[in-house]
């Protein structure tokens, strides 16, 4: 068992080292500080062009102007620390810094990274003056972005829920499956320079394989040993801590974007502005969720999954190979979570802790819908997504997750088996 874990770990580490070795030529074009200026209006991002940025440090001074998609980049002679200043005069009308003290970002460290040589600096842009939209327009925009976020949560929640249903494991490392999809795609895309679609397919396959590996190397042996569910939950905490820091170790703490299709301009649909990537996220997420639900509802394996979920011993007695079903569930769960993370890489950015940050919302969604139910996971996710976005009309954006987590606690108080769950599940 120890040997299997070590072998699996070794494989992953070697793969990462190989990737970082392969990717290192990308940094040959030297060090640079750069970023993307985006004006955040009601949750959507609009690039800001023609703004001057100055970089000063170590006797060097350079400047750049943001281009049509808001991207700017200053090449640097050396590693070191630099002060980055935005020229507020050059900002367009109605756009300003949301944090007034962030005109100059001081002492930005530029270190030799594993992938690429770009240090990203972000300025907090937002509506500065009275460019207000009506409450209804805001609500429409927030509803759409809430639906989008809900679908992304659902991709994580569905996997978590069917894994819980079949094995009883509350997997605190599920967030790391979500991060994995985004990071694998980012490494293939920005690191190895593959076309995004090829990188995305690769990322999806790797995520499915990673889900399989989680089960084959860790959870299946633990089930064979008869490890208790609480002990397994604590193991999953350890795994989450390990994986999250493993990601950070190899790719660093800063946020990253895919090299293509990131930060596209919005298209107006009445009061709602959506980027082409937003539309793609809707289509891909809905197709993936619908396909999974169809597979679970119609195919033999899907029916077997629901049977195991209902009662593992009875299912085994009826001739269903329970371990085979669980393997299937982990592959599906890994792929769905990875897909969710990959798409989340567009709406947020790619980082080592993106999955961890969304994990509690996934838990909230699953608990709200009813732990272990399929429809409940999707339904709960949409509600959580909408709730998070729409409550920003009333409460500050930084506290939006607080509302969703409070709902989680309240739902446990009044209806602990969730909206679509069955009473017996709470045990």
């Amino acid at each position: 068992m120890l040997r299997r874990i070590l072998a699996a770990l070794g494989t992953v580490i070697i793969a990462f080292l190989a990737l970082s070795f392969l990717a290192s030529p990308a940094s040959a074009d030297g060090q640079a500080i750069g970023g993307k200026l985006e004006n955040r209006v009601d949750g959507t991002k609009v690039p800001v062009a023609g703004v001057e940025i100055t970089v000063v440090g170590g006797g060097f001074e350079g400047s750049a102007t943001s281009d049509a998609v808001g991207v700017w980049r200053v090449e640097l002679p050396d590693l070191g620390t630099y002060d980055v200043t935005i020229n507020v005069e050059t900002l367009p009308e109605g756009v300003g810094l949301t944090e007034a003290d962030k005109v100059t970002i001081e002492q930005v460290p530029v270190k030799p990274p594993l992938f690429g040589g770009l240090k990203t600096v972000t300025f907090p842009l937002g509506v500065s003056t009275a460019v207000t939209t009506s409450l209804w327009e805001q609500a429409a925009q927030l509803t759409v972005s809430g639906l989008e976020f809900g679908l992304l949560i659902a991709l994580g929640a569905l996997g978590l829920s069917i894994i819980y249903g079949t094995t009883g494991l509350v997997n605190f490392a599920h967030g790391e499956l979500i991060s994995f999809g985004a990071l694998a795609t980012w490494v293939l895309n920005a690191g190895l320079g593959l076309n995004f679609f090829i990188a995305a397919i690769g990322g999806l396959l790797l995520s499915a394989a990673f889900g399989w590996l989680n089960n084959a190397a860790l959870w299946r042996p633990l089930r064979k040993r008869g490890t208790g569910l609480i002990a397994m939950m604590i193991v999953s905490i350890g795994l989450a801590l390990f994986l999250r820091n493993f990601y950070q170790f190899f790719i660093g703490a800063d946020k990253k974007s895919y090299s293509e299709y990131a930060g596209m301009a919005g298209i107006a649909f009445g009061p709602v502005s959506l980027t082409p990537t937003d539309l793609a996220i809707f289509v891909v997420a809905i197709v993936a969720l619908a396909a999974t639900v169809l597979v679970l509802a119609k195919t033999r394996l899907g029916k077997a999954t629901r049977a195991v979920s209902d009662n593992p011993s009875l299912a085994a007695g009826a001739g269903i190979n329970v371990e085979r079903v669980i393997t299937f569930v982990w592959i599906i769960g890994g792929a769905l979570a990875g897909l969710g993370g990959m798409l989340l890489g567009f709406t947020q950015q790619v980082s080592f802790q993106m999955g961890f940050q969304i994990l509690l919302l996934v838990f909230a969604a699953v608990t709200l819908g009813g732990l272990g139910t399929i429809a409940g996971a999707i339904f709960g996710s949409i509600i959580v997504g909408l709730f998070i976005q729409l409550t920003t009309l009333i409460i500050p954006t930084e506290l939006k997750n607080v509302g969703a987590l409070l709902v989680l606690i309240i739902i446990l108080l009044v209806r602990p088996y969730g909206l679509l769950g069955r009473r017996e599940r709470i045990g």
Partner: protein
Amino acid sequence: MDWGYIFAVMVTSAFGLQAIVFGLAAIGINVQFGYTGLLNFGQAAFMAVGGYAVAVTVVELGLSFWWGVLFGLIGAVLLALLLGVPTLRLRADYLAIVTIAAAEIIRLILRSVAFKEIFGGSDGKQAFADGFFELSFLSADADLRIGPAVVNDRQLFTYIVGWSLVALACLVVWLLVRSPWGRVVKGIREDEDAVRSLGKNVFVYKMQALVLGGIFGALAGFVTAVGAQNVNPDSFKTDATFFAYAILILGGAARVFGPVLGTVIFWALFQGTDVFLREGIDAGLPIISLMDGTQAAVLRVMLVGLGLMLLMIYRPQGILGDRRELALDAR
């Protein structure tokens, strides 16, 4: 590579501020998880309540330090009641999810701009610990030297008070677990229904364990606040809770001295690894010098995660524990 320095760091860390703070937090988790079988994944929230109660009482309300301690204890009891009421009648995993969510809620509120006036946002709060150090019986030049490491009089006073609190907490736990109360909560851990069938009110016992563990968490919060003379929302991340779990399981859950042994070993190894790796990077050792300082810090946490997994799989009873006593199983 200065081995003397590494050793001195290991010794000072083994008995330093972090060791006390996480020792107290782990003692709290020991009462909840080790003896009663409650999965409190939000111990960081109880620590935050303790630390911030002191800071806000002194800085914002202008009251004395000891009012802060009182408010912190009341806050911890209220938080435990608030979390326990919806979840203690449910299965163990629900308590885990709710407590971890509550810890994040509290941390997000503490670091928010909206409440910056009260809680100081991401900068936290400073300058509130004088009331505590006025009690110090040590003279200002009472420095303690351990090799190259120096412990000043304020630190030394904090350590003395902190370890006294740890000793007191151990005494309380020891007295409780050998009392009838202790036998009932251990019974709840092993078989809740059996205890219920004996006519015991399981809910009340679980709630008492949750409250008591939360109070120990608040004590940890007091110590970290005065020791660092600073409270900061990011010292109360969920990782803090998981470190306390790693410490408890390393030392041995359901053992009075388990958390104490665990925290001493954990912090000696954790900080020792850090200094070793940094020295190794400076000395240009093979493999190690491929990392930078940040990566070395990340690697330590990675090892904590791996250690927690391996311990839980191969030695769930830790160093002091008894595997037969601790079934660690969900119903």
